[in-house]
């Protein structure tokens, strides 16, 4: 239950803070941190929560932009970056980057309380 809540809360807060684009792109790191402090779990569970929350959030958001665009831009970017034009890999890497940062921030938060 704590796992699900912390995943949902992290995802929601990260999305919300990302709407204020005058703040830097990595502001969501504080959401993951604070949720992990507020909802205390074992470190690996905190990491998992943070990771899954933002991985899924970012992959979903990317797909939401990509699909109506018919993969036009993602294919081009997947050629600018060395991904052989594979937009699926690009979406995966997008999620991976967000998820890793968020997971590490949550992990950090899990060590605040014993």
């Amino acid at each position: 239950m704590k796992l699900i809540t912390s995943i949902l809360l992290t995802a929601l807060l990260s999305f919300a803070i990302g709407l204020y684009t005058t703040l830097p792109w990595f502001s969501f790191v504080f959401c993951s941190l604070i949720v992990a402090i507020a909802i205390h779990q074992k470190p690996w569970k905190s990491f998992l929560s943070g990771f899954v929350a933002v991985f899924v959030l970012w992959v979903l958001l990317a797909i939401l932009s990509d699909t109506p665009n018919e993969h036009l831009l993602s294919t081009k970017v997947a050629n600018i970056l060395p991904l052989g034009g594979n937009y699926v890999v690009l979406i995966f890497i997008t999620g991976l980057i967000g998820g890793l940062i968020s997971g590490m921030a949550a992990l950090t938060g899990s060590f605040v309380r014993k």
Partner: protein
Amino acid sequence: MRVAPFIISALVTTGLVVALNVQLPSGKSKTPRLGYFLSPQYGFWKNAEASNASFTDHKKIQGIKSKVDVFFDERLVPHVYADNNADAYFTQGYLHAKFRLWQMEFQTYVAAGRLSEIVGEDRLATDKYFRRLGMVYGAENSLKATESDPATKEACDAYTAGVNAYITALQPENLPFEYKLLNYKPEPWTNLKTALFLKFMSWDLSGQGDDLTYTNAKTYFGYDDFMKLFPVVQDSLDPIVSRGTTFGAPNIALKVPQKMDSLYFGRKDIVENTPTLNPDKGNGSNNWAVAGSKTKSGKPILCNDPHLGLNLPAIWYEMQITTPDCNTYGATFPGAPAVIIGFNDSCVWGVTNSGRDVKDFYEIQFKDSTMQQYWFDSAWKNTTFRKEIIKVKGKPDVVENIAMTLFGPVMYDNKFAAKDNAGKYYAVRWKAHDASNELKTFYKLNRAKNVVEYNDAISTYQCPGQNFVFASHSGDIAIKQQGAFVAKWKQQGDFVMPGTDSTYLWQGIIPQNENPYMINPIRGFVSSANQQSVDSTYPYYLGRPNNFPLYRGFIINRKLNAMSGITVEDMQKLQADNYNVFAEIARPVLLKYLVTSNLNIGEKKYLEIFKQWNCNNDLKEIGATVFKVFWDSVEVNMWGDEYAQTKLTLPWPDESALIESLMKDSTYNFADDVRTPNKKETIADIILISFQKAAKQLATLEKENKLEWALYKDTKVEHLLKLPALSRFHLPIGGGKYSINATKQNHGPSWRMIVQMTDNIEAYGVYPGGQNGNPGSKFYDSFIDTWAAGKYYRIIFIKKEAAQKSEQMKWHLTFEKA
């Protein structure tokens, strides 16, 4: 609190964020800030435009006086309806920014010599070149002229306000793609940037013809051989103003300097490897207008296709601008207001480059290396200094202190030149330095109602000189080579001139009424394709013939002369015509000299193809490739040996110099290969060697399946940053340097327009790009296939009431005063 694990994971988290927040080195350049770039709420994902995106919007905005309506048709061309001119130009600025912001900013950074700010010290040499050439200096002067005219000041102010209205409201996640990629932001637009952009076009169209390398060539070859390689007369010339036209006595009586043979022609200057940038030699265009006497409809038809580098985003942006005193449609430049090439209710106009030489170099004698005093007319004159500060990304500023003389900036001195250029200084006098208001001409052309107003509109036009073609609904056709052209004696300015006395100065600007002009000629058409505007009976010197390509004008006139009952379809076919008239001229000459008795089977095969070829550079023609490879081989084998003997930077001669020599002169001293001292090669020897070498090349191309002309030429349209992922390659299009369809590898017709001035104006246009500069938009390159296929779009040119009801208008953007 578990302190140690907390600190470690906090550090790792911070490290990750930092690594993904900075640009990492990658080969010669840098990656984007990866975390930012890939974030779906901030990065490139936000630029992925939905294919069913709507551009309908209703904005309350500051900076306009009343309501403006913009209707977009299905090609995303905006049709702007405003109650006053200022609001229209404001809207134009806003739309240019909305759809092409990165491109217009980037191009003005290049013009301003500020590329290093964006990409770092790799491009420092480019920036120094433009600063020292006086690009910014010229733009500042022109801006003063532009702002002193109320109409153009209003237009520029409104345009700038419109661009800035877009920029200030731009949310970070909506930054154009390239800003995110290169990690910078747009800065506010200014009137100076518009002036800089127009100056850059000035350079692109009049900055060619490098006097310094020609000076080297004269020294290296000696005057007589130089004149064989770079002759002053072109036999095949069909000038813009037909031969046989008489010219009045010149208003400026030119004083030719004394002792020119020793002081000018005979000088042995060597200008070693001075850093130089040249605009593409192919920058030029075609235009023509046919009178009602030659058309099926009885009304004139005008055609124009400017030839520029093929880039994405495209240099042109189509739009309609309608205000109470102006109802015009055409191609605009993101970066400047008004319509540049287009039409209105009553008339249509177009431009080709005049090619006239208005940039000259003078050697300066300084007292010493401080460059504070120079010798002129037997006295020491003082210089002033112009400071140009070049910011370099990631490095300290670079300061250029440019000495200013009465000629202009000292472009090449001991800090900007090859290290071997012992103590030489060259100042540049360029007409583009002078204050001028080119915008006024386009502003007036947009509103011109007849040939009198057309002449008035172009009368103030200075630089770069253009051949303005014109046609009106009432039936007039005209062409005028207009600009501030220097009154020159024969060959003045072809080489570096002495800067120590006034006898070599420019002696005046040719009065307007002496500029070449043709109106309603009996032959029923006017045309220009960058050839010389007049023959040698004209009392002023136009410039080195190498600036005036011969062949397109030649074939256009031949074809137009033979046509009658002309329709729009005929004109479309003509603009896309691939006939290679130079090949027609050269082939019999080459075959005359080619000894075929000892050719092998492969060589005979290519010879047969060459003989049977119909001289069309159509996309599948192998003959076109055979001719190009063969001719290039002839040039290299004829001249390459002489050129290989020197490290000097020399210009390469024109094909016309060679073919005309071969036609007249059966002993051509360049045929002799100077590397074979015991043998004196003849023309026939060289032609044979060239053909055999060409055959080898062709065999290789055949193996690679690149013999067909379009595959060999491999036309591409590249993104301004040369990123392959954002470019289009291998376009199926023929044509070439000598064809009316002047499409080469990455250069060609950047806009094609055909307008028939019937009561209901019939207009067609296409360009190799798209209206939206966003690579994430389906409108980024949507016109390219149509353009490559030689097809056109029907232009929609309607009143506001019609636009409101029209099914062809897909989206409606309104601006209301906030």
